[in-house]
């Protein structure tokens, strides 16, 4: 997952999404120690305060936790990670379905199209 930003949404909320994806995809593993805000900001090319705010949001959502002296860690709660995966998937599906509706697909036609296309995708 690259640190790429669109021009419509606040950078902070895009950081939250990218960090979640990194956790869900296993790039940051459960229980793993995260890089410091300074290092991760430099990697992402963003303001450290914005990164700090995104981390704080992940903390509020119990995806990461701070241990006073040792730093910041990804949660070990695999169910919490799984929940985030589903949340992200749901968001993507919703916007996909909306777009397909705009393209004129009925629900049954969309399902048929998906079934056919997924069949073509190699595992």
């Amino acid at each position, binding site marked *: 997952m690259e640190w790429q*930003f669109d*021009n*419509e*949404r*606040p*950078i*902070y*909320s895009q950081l939250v999404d990218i960090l979640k994806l990194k956790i869900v995809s296993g790039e940051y593993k459960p229980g793993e120690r995260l890089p410091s805000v*300074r290092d991760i*900001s*430099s990697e992402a*090319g*963003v*303001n*450290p*305060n*914005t990164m700090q705010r995104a981390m704080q949001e992940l903390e509020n959502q119990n995806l990461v936790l701070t241990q006073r002296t040792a730093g910041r860690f990804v949660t070990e709660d695999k169910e919490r990670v799984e929940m985030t995966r589903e949340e992200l998937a749901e968001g993507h599906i919703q916007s996909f379905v909306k777009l397909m509706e705009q393209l004129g697909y009925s629900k049954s036609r969309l399902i048929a199209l998906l079934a056919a296309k997924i069949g073509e995708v190699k595992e």
Partner: protein
Amino acid sequence: MAILECKALSKSYGLTKAVDSADIKIEAGRVVGLLGPNGSGKTTLIKLAAGLLSPTSGEVLIEGMAPGPETKAIVSYLSDRDYLPDWMNLNQLLDYFGDFYSDFNREKAIELSKRIGVVDNKPLKTLSKGTREKLQLVLVMSRDAKLFLLDEPIGGVDPATRDTIIDTIIKNYNPDAAVIISTHIITDIEKILDDVIFINEGKISLVESVDDIRAKHQKSVDAYFREVYKC
């Protein structure tokens, strides 16, 4: 106490008001973009804060003090001009900065110079324009200052150099210091800013956080700036 405070700050050249009753307050830990078209008063405002110009009226305060030797000791200013002496080499240049500024961190300067590829001690005149700009920024960022005033640090450099400059600013982030970056090239720099100040014809027209602008207008600061200043 705010690191920088301007109260009804004005600077006139004859009938031209280069800065027109600017009120600004910048706290420690903020990285602020001073954005405006060419000739909008960015450089004048920065020079007032650096103590290089004196106000026609109003006040500029650095940690509560009017510009003078005490404020110059805590303000690190990057000029928009190339002022590196051609005949010096890196070592001589570091000595020179060390003599001038008691907060100059030589080890840091050596480390940062290495990162931009300036290691040997050839005369500075052998360096390219882009490298000289990066080196000037390295020197300015190597001070343990409270206020960094960077006048057009990314004007006229290639995108890779721009990335190095932006990374240098992030890596040197200090929660006890404030950074002000003047620029008219916003795209690359808005990700590293907390807040932006829009200035036009000497007047401050907007002070807002980058993410608030994006949330309110669903567009980047760059796109918003183009809209506001469309001719």
